[in-house]
């Protein structure tokens, strides 16, 4: 090899200043990385190990049982009930959340000077602590004195039992979660504000109506944001826990007994931490598969304006 080629192949060494900069960067990010490894990766790997064991927290050591926890789940009626509840809730929540957040973002974009006020009003519920939210909505959804049924009564509709009705308990929780759609809303709003105005002006010149502009410009250009929110919403939806834990305890008649609640009960009440870990990894697998399917399908409906 010639000397020139050898020099070309050799990696250029970082200058002292660049090396120092790199080390400083590592030093500043080290706490976060360390924290993530210790408090996230560590427990995640530990739960993966526990999923193959019989472990009740109180015993000194878990005992290895292979795939028994996973095969038990496949024969467990309550597991299937919680799975059904979770899928039902997810299927109801995701499209409604996306539709509501997107519609609100569209409305607020055109609100002019008042948009700041509307933005705050829509976002604030998403940062209210879950216990406070649950207490408020327990009253709103009360079949006798709740605001919702009283409002329906004004227009001649007899409201359902909501949280005390097995048929309406899940829709009630979806309704409560729609109130907290602020997170998706601000992301949609940011995406809408990123759409170039000249697209609309050009369409205007060609005689496009507002609906044409919305359907042929706004929607296609927002598909990447829709995809992102779809993925995030589905991850949250699969993990629904607090609202059921606080408001219904999984009832009535197990109607709101979601998978996350079943994991909690198995881990901390029934002392079957190994089985609880196995169910949480099944949940993880489901979320991964669903996300992969979404990403795969996105090739056909997501439009990246600047090319792929």
């Amino acid at each position, binding site marked *: 090899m010639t000397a020139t080629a050898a020099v070309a192949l050799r990696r250029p060494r970082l200058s002292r200043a660049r090396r120092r900069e790199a080390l400083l960067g590592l030093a500043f990010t080290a706490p976060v990385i360390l924290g993530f490894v210790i408090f996230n990766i560590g427990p995640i790997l530990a739960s993966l190990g526990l999923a193959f064991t019989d472990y009740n*927290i*109180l015993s000194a050591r878990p005992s290895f049982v292979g795939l028994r926890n996973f095969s038990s789940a496949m024969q467990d009626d309550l597991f299937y009930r919680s799975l059904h509840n979770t899928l039902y809730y997810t299927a109801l929540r995701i499209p409604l959340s996306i539709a509501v957040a997107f519609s609100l973002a569209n409305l607020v974009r055109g609100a002019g000077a008042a948009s700041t006020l509307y933005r705050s009003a829509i976002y604030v519920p998403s940062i209210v602590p879950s216990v406070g939210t649950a207490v408020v909505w327990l009253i709103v959804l009360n079949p*006798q004195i709740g605001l919702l049924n009283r409002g329906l009564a004004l227009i001649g509709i007899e409201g359902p*039992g909501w949280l005390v*009705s097995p048929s309406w308990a899940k829709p009630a929780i979806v309704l409560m979660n729609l109130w907290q759609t602020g997170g998706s809303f601000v992301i949609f709003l940011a995406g809408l504000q990123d759409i170039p105005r000249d697209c609309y002006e050009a369409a205007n010149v060609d005689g496009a109506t507002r609906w044409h502009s919305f359907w042929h410009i706004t929607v296609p250009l927002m598909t990447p944001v829709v995809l992102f929110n779809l993925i995030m919403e589905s991850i949250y939806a699969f993990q629904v826990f607090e609202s059921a834990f606080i408001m219904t305890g999984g009832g*009535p008649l197990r109607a709101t007994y979601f998978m996350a609640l079943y994991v909690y009960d198995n881990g*901390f009440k029934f002392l079957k931490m190994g089985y609880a870990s196995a169910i949480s990894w099944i949940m993880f697998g489901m979320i991964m598969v669903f996300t992969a399917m979404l990403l795969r399908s996105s090739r056909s409906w997501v439009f990246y304006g600047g090319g792929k």
Partner: protein
Amino acid sequence: MAFREVSRRRLLQSALASGTAATLAACGATPTPQVIKEVVTQVVEKEVTKIVEGTPQVVVETVVVESTVVVEKEVEITAAVQPVTLTLWHHWGGTREPLLAAAFEDFAARNPGVTVEPTLIPWDSKEQTILTAVAAGEAPDVLMLNASEMPPYALNQAIMPVDDLIAEAGIAADEVYESDWAVTQFEGKIWGLPHTVGEAAQLLFFNTQHFEEAGLDPAAPPASWTDLRQATEALIGKQGEDIQRLGLLIGASGWTWLNFLAENEAAWLSGDAREVQMDNPDAAEALQFIVDLTDAQGGAEQVAGFVSAGGESDPFYSGRTAMAYSGVWNYFLLKTNAPELRYGSAVAPNNKGQFHEANYGPHLWTLPATGQHIPEAWKLAMWMSRDDGGCQFLVAQLRPSPWKACNEGSALSQLAGYWSVVEAALTSARPEPRTPVFNQFLSIWDEMLDKATRHESDAAATITWAAAEMTTANDEFWQSQG
């Protein structure tokens, strides 16, 4: 009130005692007689002058009142060789915390060098808090556990058996009410000292004004299930289809289910916890009774909607329900939350046999196996159960103690107008078997009650289903133990 605020004199006494103890510690710990002053609750007769309403007549009456007096007691104080801080976890929040703090202060005064660091564990999060602490080896020195929660801790040696300590302290079983002593035991050993009674947990509280309005006699509350059903139907208030007042707040949950089983002498589990026995006609009859009571008041959904509408912690306090099941703790809560409410109480009506409720668990003071200061922790556990600390803590709340001497020696029987009810309840509770899968059974029973009261299936079929679920969970657990 049995407790008082810390006075300067008290502080000085404690400082003197601590100083003395420190000096003794340098020389070696020996018991030292010391005089301690404490405030005790006494019953005295007092003459009061009052005007008879509506007349100019003045009368002098003798009434029994609560009075506090400072007494001096000579106690032997053993200074700790080295200062010790004992951690203790409990569930006594709200108005009970100051009472507990005073009890610990007294303990510290009698045990110089020992301080108690209590932590309130909220009831809702107790499972994950206690379990994770035990798993991490960070359990406190003294832990308050309900007797129903005790078996898995005992099985896994997370808490210590206290048989030897009991024998050394000379504690006899007959110092405690029989069923309270029985439920401290699991697999042949004793796992803690009872702190509260497990009986008198399902008493019938009733609104005397509602009784009078409905033509019922408050002096003759329901004594049988038949009486209870009739009273419920007479007391319910409706406007059209809407419930305005509930006749009886059953509070049907897995916890109350055990009481209905005991009231009908229905078996559910063998004494050794190995065999589920709930699939029997008596259990089905008990479940049918709950269904009938619920239907009589409008059905499960309507009742649930009505109960949640109030937003208050207990609709009995606001008069929205005429009768309710609750425990002996309710007397203190009624005094603080609804002092104007006119109410009466009685042992729960039963259907057959001698029992009026189930004893599934008093709170116990237990010693986690990882504790570092066992002798001091044991002294604290005894202080808060058999000795003055526990007794005064309960008397201040007008609650009975599981320790007979505390009830017999205190002013409670004269101060508490309901004492005859509590006394009757203390000897009419069925001790229930301990099981490590109690939480799973509770979850099954919650669903069972939902299924039956919402008519998803009839009572007999629901009992059969529930017993099968319980058997599966129970067998799986005991098989895993080998």
